[in-house]
């Protein structure tokens, strides 16, 4: 029989979108390596990172996150639809500390996704709004008083509630604030059914493979053919 431990965690695709220099790459690095590098370079095109992760509160639930970290620079925008196609979650990031401009871009991306959804709504993308650089936002020297901070947050809140109650997270890649919470909540918010249905399907597949009718043998015989062909050189 197939043990549960033999079943690999289901993969779950996430895409990060947002203006240039809001900290998308740093956020991913904090999540994956728990490190922060002040000299992180601009992303060119996109980077694809995978990470197996179990929820802190529900450790029996784990996912293999497949994360698209995209470039924020305008000149790469034409490529972006490819990254959010098939994504389950879109993390739309902005910079709390550079609010006006980056929040505007965040709204642009949310619109883009919704326009795309309307065209092809087989698998809806869950949108989460991420306000990064919370450390700078709260700093005394940020030039913001408590009042303007509240005004910004109120603006975000209103936007979220008028857009299908988008979830909003505050994070800081510098001190790690809110980042495990964010990924925990992505797992915790999933239905039980997602996991049980996956496990059943996977178990059936593995059973079938054990009965000889498996991809492994096909793959390896195919590879053997190609290597044999090249060995004559």
């Amino acid at each position, binding site marked *: 029989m197939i043990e549960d431990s033999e079943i690999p965690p289901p993969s779950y695709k996430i895409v990060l979108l947002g203006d*240039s220099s809001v900290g998308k790459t740093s956020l991913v690095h904090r999540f994956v*390596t728990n490190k922060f590098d002040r000299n992180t370079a601009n992303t*060119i095109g996109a980077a*694809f990172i995978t*990470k197996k992760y179990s929820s802190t509160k529900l450790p029996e639930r784990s996912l293999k996150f497949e994360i698209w970290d995209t470039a924020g620079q305008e*000149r790469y925008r034409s490529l972006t639809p490819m990254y959010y196609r098939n994504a389950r979650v879109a993390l739309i990031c902005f910079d709390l500390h550079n609010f006006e401009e980056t929040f505007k871009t965040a709204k642009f991306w949310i619109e883009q996704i919704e326009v795309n959804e309307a065209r092809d709504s087989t698998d809806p993308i869950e949108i989460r709004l991420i306000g990064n650089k919370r450390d700078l936002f709260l700093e005394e020297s940020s030039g913001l008083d408590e009042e303007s901070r509240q005004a910004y947050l109120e603006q975000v809140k209103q936007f979220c509630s008028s857009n299908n109650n988008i979830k909003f997270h505050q994070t800081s890649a510098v001190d790690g604030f809110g980042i495990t919470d964010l990924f925990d909540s992505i797992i915790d918010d999933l239905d039980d059914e997602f996991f049980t249905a996956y496990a059943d399907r996977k178990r059936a597949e593995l059973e079938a493979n054990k009965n000889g009718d498996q*991809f492994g043998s096909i793959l390896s015989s195919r590879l053997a053919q190609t290597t044999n062909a090249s060995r004559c050189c």
Partner: protein
Amino acid sequence: MKDVHPKNPENSDQHETIKFNTSFISPSKLVSGPSISPAKFPSVPTTAVNLENAGSINAADLLPSQSSHTSSTEVPDSSHLRVANNHSSGRFSLASENSYVPSIAGLTSEDEEDDREDNNIETSHNEEEDLQSILNGLIRHENHFNGQISHRNSLSSPRQEISFLDLNIFPNSETVQNGEEYYNKYIRISKDEDEAAFVEKLKHFFILSSAGKPVFSMHGADDIIMGYMGIITTIVSTFEENMKEEIKSITVGDRIKIVAINKNPLILVAVSQISYEMMSFTHNESVEEELHPRPNSLEDHDSDSDDLILINQLNTLYNYLLSILSKPTIEKNFHNRMNYDLRRVLTPLDFHNFEALCLKLTYGLPLLKEGEKISDTSSFDFYIGELLDSSIQSVKIRNTTRNRLNNIFLSCKRIKVKEDDLDSEVNSDSVSFFSKAEDQERYLGEDLLFSFLTTSSNRILSFMKPRNHTLSNEDLKILFSMISSAEMQSGDSEFTEDLWIPLCMPNFNPNGFLYVFVRKFDLSEYVEPRPTVSQPLSIILISSNKNTFFKMREISRYIITKIVKGENSRNNPLSRELLESTKLSILNDIRVPAIKHFIYKLKCSNQFIMNDMVYYNNDRSMNTLLQLVYFYSILHNSKATKIKSKLKATYNHETGLVRQINSSRSESKKLTYTRWNGAGTSVTGFMLSDDVYEFYCLSNEEIGSKDLIANSLKIIQWCEKYRKRLFLGEGVTF
């Protein structure tokens, strides 16, 4: 010639000449433009250029030259020699024996054709004797001139650490205490608002729009460069509109050279005060059959040869811009609005890459942060590759291993998968990806154009390309620079990321993008016992289709599996060979103790190998690096003494003497011998080339002509014997 420093603009009454090199816009033929004097550019940028004083004589015109077009490049080093001499009377006026006085001799022998493939010893014996007698003649001649200095040298203090300042590579060496101070003052990139410091810098690059909007400047804050942008556009458009000519270069005495290229809607400008960049040199004879032919940057090359070094540098910067934006994007942006600000679409990383390119192209130096030390030699490798006409560096691995890797690439093109699986990118569940269904199968790698397996230092181990397409070395250079800059962030080995980079390959197709997949992996993780050093390798897969990331990722996984299969046994070839190849050293492989550094370039494939610079001075410091850059630039560029049918030795000294030796044998063999004396020691540089190879070496020990030749030939023979291991060859074609 007078010694004028840029900080003394009041010396404007000195007789310096400005020479304009221009070309008619159509047809693009070169004419020599008006010469102008006196000059204050660029120290006092507001000075108007006076076009009425045409007709004053350029100093270069007075130099002995061997008639007609092809030999107009004779006496390539005169400017350099004079620069050096100036300094011996400046900084070293009290002890002139301390200054390095380079003396250069170039000669070409003409032997009967000898077949390089069969490396028989008899031929090389004859060769050795011939070369030796030629070289002996040269050295005797040199001693006649240098005898006094050499003699005094031998009495002076024992050998000491040489600083690049002692070599008078750059102007104003006497104004500083040490190399670091010099670097900070004249070389280091600075965006300060201090204009006095700005004009001191030895090298400037500007990229601006035709309307005068700055895109990039190597040094200086915006406030400073704005004025210069105005001057540049004024000069360029004046020539364009009033004289129907395109300005190419402006030479101020032999002190400053300004070169511009007009890539409408952009203008790129280089300003240099560095002697080795102002040397004129002929490009290698065009009989060279390069695997990757150079792009059209060499049109008009015989008349442009004076400016070629700087023109090539500007083309490299321009290619970078093309690679990130592509030509149509640049044109479209400016078409909509002439005063468009291109900086809007550039990222901080782009400016970082521009700065790194400027330093690499000029000095072979990396872009260092405050207080950071040079940690690898990639910038030096880059410089030497540029110097050797966009040559690429190879890694030594066994030919059978290379073939094995090539065949793995070939087999990638034969993997078939079911069409449905390709469309639904359920890649991560590879179980369902490799479906068993036989109908409607398609090739996984149908959009895969080029594949590379490289080391972490971007040296290619193996590659695959389509039958009718190729990537030029210039394009490869852009590709590798881009990948290195994208990887800066992931110094962490515990986490892997796959990159997907849209990139325009300017020589392949300046109008469109290719998509570059990059996966790094550490070979040492798959080897038992695990090597102590990590062996990072990169798989680079270039696709023509932007939606093929997951296919490329699947192919990369397949390649890794194939490479590491069998790697866990002790006799794993690739891992062990990679460990050895990093130690490519003439000291380890053959006994040539006096030769401390060498470069061997195989002309037909435009690839080269050299040993690690650490063997030269036991360090990889900036000091050593700048010296090697200088020595090799002089050695390479002085081979311009291109002599046709008869064996001839030209010997340039301060007197500008030219000597000829006749010989009955004929071949395309050339040699250059250079010696820098001073500071109680000397450095010998030697270049030997024929149709097959170019060989350069340096020795900082006393070495006789006999040993020099014997050792050089030993290395050359070794390189020829192991050619298939040392050089990449032509990869595989599908």
